[in-house]
C-alpha cells in the first residue's frame, strides 16, 4: 500500500516520466494496481485547473483508478460541530434528534471511511493487488484510509504497541497537520479554515471496529479517548506541530516528553488494555450497514451523561476476563 499527494497534471495534462517509472517499479510483470482517489471524479478533474489532477490512464496503464470521495476540511468540521450541538441539546425531541443526527452526516462519514478502507484492504487481501491512496494533499483523507486499512488487515497494528507505531507512521510522521487540524474543536466559534476532525474520524472508525470485533484489539476505548484528548491539548510533545520538519525546528524531541513513554509505563498501561483481547491473526472485515455503525457514545456523551453503570459493567467484564 502506498500513499502520496495528487499528481500535478495541470490543465495541460503534463507528464512526469520519473513518477510513471516509480509507480511502474511497484508492480511486477503483468500485475495490476489500484489507485484510490479520495476525491470525487469531478473534484479531481476540477483540481487540474489549479495545477493538480489525476493520473491519466494512458500514462499509468497498469493502474485502475477508483474514486471514493471522503469528506474533509470545513464541511467535516461543520459536521462535527453540528453533531456536538445536537448531543448537547437537552430539550430536543426524538424526531429532531434523529433528524439532526442524519443531517450532520457524521455517521455517513464514518460509513464512507470504513467502506473505503475496506475497499483498499480488499484490493490487497482479495485481489492481491497493490494500492496507491491519495486525495489532494495526501495529509488528511489519505492517511485516514491507509491507517484504517492497516488496522483491518494487520493484526500487529491491533496490539497496543503496534497501534502506537501505526499512529507514529501513518499520522505523525506522514505529516498530518495536527496543529492546524486539532486547534479548537467543536465548541469554538472561531471556525478556523484549516481545522478538521480527521483524526477523530479515524478514532471513531477504530472504535466501530472494536465494537464489531471486541476480542481483536489489544487496546480499549480508554486509549482512543486519551488520544483524542491529547491531539487537541497535551502535556506531551507527540502531537505538536504539523510535520517532522516543524518538530525538528521546534526541537520537540529535545524539549518535551513522549506520550507513548507515559502510556507504556507498567503502572499506566493496564488502563489502556482490552481485557477481552485475544490475538486474531487474520483480517477483520467490518459490516458497514447503518445498523452496524453506532454513535460513539463514550466520546460524544462523555460529559453529558453519567457513566457509573457502564464503568461498573466494564469493571465486571475485566474481573470475569481475568478470573478466566
Amino acid at each position, binding site marked *: 500500500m502506498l500513499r502520496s499527494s495528487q499528481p500535478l497534471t495541470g490543465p495541460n495534462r503534463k507528464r512526469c516520466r520519473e513518477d510513471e517509472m516509480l509507480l511502474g517499479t511497484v508492480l511486477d510483470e503483468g500485475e*495490476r494496481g*489500484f489507485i484510490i482517489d479520495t476525491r470525487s471524479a469531478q473534484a479531481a478533474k476540477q483540481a487540474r485547473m489549479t495545477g493538480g489532477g489525476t493520473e491519466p490512464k494512458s500514462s499509468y496503464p497498469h493502474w*485502475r483508478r*477508483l*474514486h471514493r470521495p471522503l469528506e474533509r476540511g470545513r464541511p467535516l468540521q461543520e459536521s462535527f460541530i453540528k453533531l456536538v450541538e445536537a*448531543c448537547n441539546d437537552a430539550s*430536543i*425531541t*426524538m*424526531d*429532531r*434528534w*434523529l433528524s439532526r443526527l*442524519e443531517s450532520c*452526516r457524521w*455517521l*455517513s462519514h*464514518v*460509513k464512507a471511511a470504513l*467502506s*473505503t478502507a475496506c*475497499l483498499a*484492504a*480488499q484490493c490487497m*487481501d*482479495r485481489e492481491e*493487488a497493490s494500492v496507491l491512496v491519495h486525495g489532494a494533499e495526501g495529509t488528511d483523507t489519505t492517511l485516514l484510509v491507509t491507517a484504517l486499512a492497516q488496522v483491518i488487515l494487520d493484526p500487529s497494528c491491533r496490539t497496543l504497541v503496534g497501534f502506537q507505531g501505526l499512529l507514529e507512521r501513518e499520522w505523525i510522521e506522514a505529516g498530518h497537520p495536527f496543529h492546524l487540524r486539532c486547534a479548537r474543536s467543536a465548541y469554538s466559534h472561531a471556525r478556523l479554515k484549516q481545522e478538521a476532525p480527521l483524526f477523530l474520524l479515524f478514532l471513531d472508525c477504530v472504535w466501530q471496529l472494536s*465494537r*464489531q*470485533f*471486541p*476480542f*481483536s484489539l489489544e487496546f480499549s476505548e480508554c486509549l482512543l479517548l486519551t488520544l483524542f484528548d491529547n491531539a487537541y491539548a497535551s502535556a506531551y510533545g507527540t502531537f505538536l506541530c504539523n510535520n517532522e520538519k516543524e518538530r525538528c525546528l521546534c526541537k520537540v524531541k529535545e524539549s518535551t516528553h513522549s506520550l507513548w513513554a507515559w502510556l507504556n509505563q507498567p503502572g499506566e498501561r493496564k488502563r489502556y488494555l482490552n481485557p*477481552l483481547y*485475544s490475538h486474531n*491473526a*487474520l*483480517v*477483520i*472485515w467490518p*459490516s*458497514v*450497514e*447503518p*445498523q*452496524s*455503525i*453506532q*454513535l460513539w457514545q463514550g466520546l460524544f456523551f462523555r460529559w453529558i*451523561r453519567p457513566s457509573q*453503570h*457502564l464503568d*461498573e*459493567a466494564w469493571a*465486571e*467484564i475485566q474481573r*470475569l*476476563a481475568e*478470573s*478466566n
Partner: protein
Amino acid sequence: LFTLQVENVKLLDRYTNRKAANGTLYLTATHLIYVDASAEVRKETWILHHHIATVEKLPLTTAGYPLLIHCKNFHVAHFVIGQERDCHEVYTSLLKLSQPVKPEELYAFSYNPKMSKENREIGWKLIDLKVDYQRMGIPNDYWEITDVNKDYEVCNTYPPEIVVPRAANKAVVIGSSRFRSRGRIPVLSYLYKENNAAICRCSQPLSGFSARCLEDEQMLQAIREANPGSPFMYVVDTRPKLNAMANRAAGKGYENEDNYDNIRFKFIGIENIHVMRNSLQKLLEVCEMKSPSMSDFLTGLENSGWLRHIKAVMDAGVFLAKAVKDEKASVLVHCSDGWDRTAQVCSVASILLDPFYRTFKGFMVLIEKEWIAMGHKFSHRCGHLDGDPKEVSPVFTQFVECVWQLMQQFPCTFEFNERFLLEIHDHVYSCQFGNFLGTCHKEREDVKIFEKTHSLWPFLLQKKQELRNPLYRGFTAYKELQPNTLPFSFQFWCGMYNRFDKGMHPKQCVLDHLLSCVSQKVKLEDNASELENKLPCLDGPLPSEACSLSKVGSAASKTPMLNTPQDYEGEPPPVLSNGASAGDVDAVSDVDQKHKENLSRHRDLHDLNDTVDVLDSEAKDGKPQHH
C-alpha cells in the same frame, strides 16, 4: 412426517443472491424446514407456522418463483422455488397453516413433550401472584386480596383475585365497576412498601361530559387514604388529550378533578394501537432496505416514529416511579380499556422501582400479573387466530424493548440477558405454551389451558445458563433505576428487528465468552434451587426448534461464524484485472464463495460449548481460528 416436500428451493438473504445453493423445503404440521445440504455442513432453517405473519408471491425471476415470508418475530425468509406448481402449493399450504381459525388448532394443544402429568401441573403453579403480593406486605391494614371477582361478576377480563383497598367495601367495588369501561375497576398493581405509595390501574371512567359516580369517587378516595403519607394522588391518563376528549362524546372519557377530592390529573400522551401498528410496519420496511445509506436509515427510523413511541412509554414509567418514590404519592393509571398502554406503563414502573422484577422469577411474575392476569388481549394483539387485523399491535413488543433499553443503560442490574427477552417474545407468538393464549383468565379457564397445555416458565428456567446476565451484580446492588430519557439514550435494537441478519451484528460474541467465565461458579448455586424445576428429557421437536432459529448440524455448531467482506461498494464496483466487477460473486475464488455461503449460516445459540467466537476471514487454507 412431512405434509409437503419440495426440491430445488433457494433461500436468499441480503448477502447472497445469484449463487445461492439449492435446498429442500419441508412442511410439517407445525413447521417449515429448509435444508441446505450443498456445503460440507448441513444447514437448517426452521420457521414455526404460527410465527408466519404474511406470505407473498413475488414476480417471476430468472431463478424461479419467489415466495416472501414475513414472520412475527421479524424473520424474513425469501425463497425461490423452481416450479410454479410447487410454489403455489407451498403458498396455499402456508396460508392455511399460518392462520388457524379455532383455538384448538393452536400448537399448545398438540405440543406434547415427554413429561409427567405432575410436572406439567407443577409448571403451572411455578408463578403464584399471591406470593408477590405477600412480598409487598399484602394483605395489610390498607390493602386486601379480595375474591369479589371469583365468578367474574365484577369484571370478566380481570382475574378472580384482585387487590383493592380494605376501605372499599363490596358496594363501592360493584358501583365503581359500573362506571368503568368493561368493568375494569381500579385495582392495585404495585405497592411501594417503603412509603405506602401505590400504583393502581383501571380503565377509563364512563363519565361522558358530566356523569358522576359516588362509588367510583369513593374508590379513589379509598386508594388515596390507603397512603396516609400523601395529601393527594395522581390520576394518569396515558392517552393523548385529544383522544381522551373525543371519548367523552361516546360517554366515556377521563376523571374530572372537580369531582374527585385531592387528585392531580395528568395526560401522558402515548399513541393508540393503530398508530403503533403502523409505526412498526414502517420500522420493518427500514430494516429490510437493501444497502441503505446512513441517511436513508436515519430518515426512515425517524419517519417510523418508533423510538419516539418507545420513549413515550419509558417517560410514562419514569413519571410513575418518580411519583411513588420521590413524591410518595399513589398513582392511578388508565388508558381506554386499561389493558394496553396501562400494562406497559405499570410494568416499566415496577421494574424501575423494584429489583425483584429484574430477576428471572420476578420478571415472570410481572408478566403473569400485569399482562396475563390483568387481561392484555394477547390473542388479538398477536394475531394468534385469523381475526381482525386492526386488533393486531406490538404493545408487548414495545414493553420488551423498554426492558432492553434499560439493559443497555444498566448492564449489571438484570439477572437475565437479551436472549431471555427474545425467547419470551418468540413464545408470545409461537402459541406453543398456554400462558399467552386467549385474552383473559376466564377465557383460559373456559378453554382448559391449565389442564391441556404447558407453561412456558419451567421451560425457560431450564435454559437459565444461557439466558443469564454474566454481569449481574446481584439483587441488592441496585435499588431504583433512574434512566436517562434523552433521545440519544434510545438505541435501535438490531438484535430484535434485524435479528436474523447475522452479518449486521458484532462478529464476536462477548456474551458467550463471559457466560463461560461465569458458568462454573453458578452451576453449583443453581443446582440447589433448580432441582424442583428440572424437567426430564423431552420427546418430539425440542422447544428450541419452535423458534425461528436455524438448527445447525452438530459438526457445524463448533465452528465459529466465518468473517468475510461484504459489498463495500456504494457506486458501481470497479473492474478488476480479470475483467469482472469487484462486487461480482463470480469473480471471487472458490474458497471465498464457500465462505460467503457460510456467512449466512446461523449459529446454534443453544450450544453452550461455544466459548469465544473468533471471526476471521478465511485463511488461504480455509481454516478458521478457534479459542
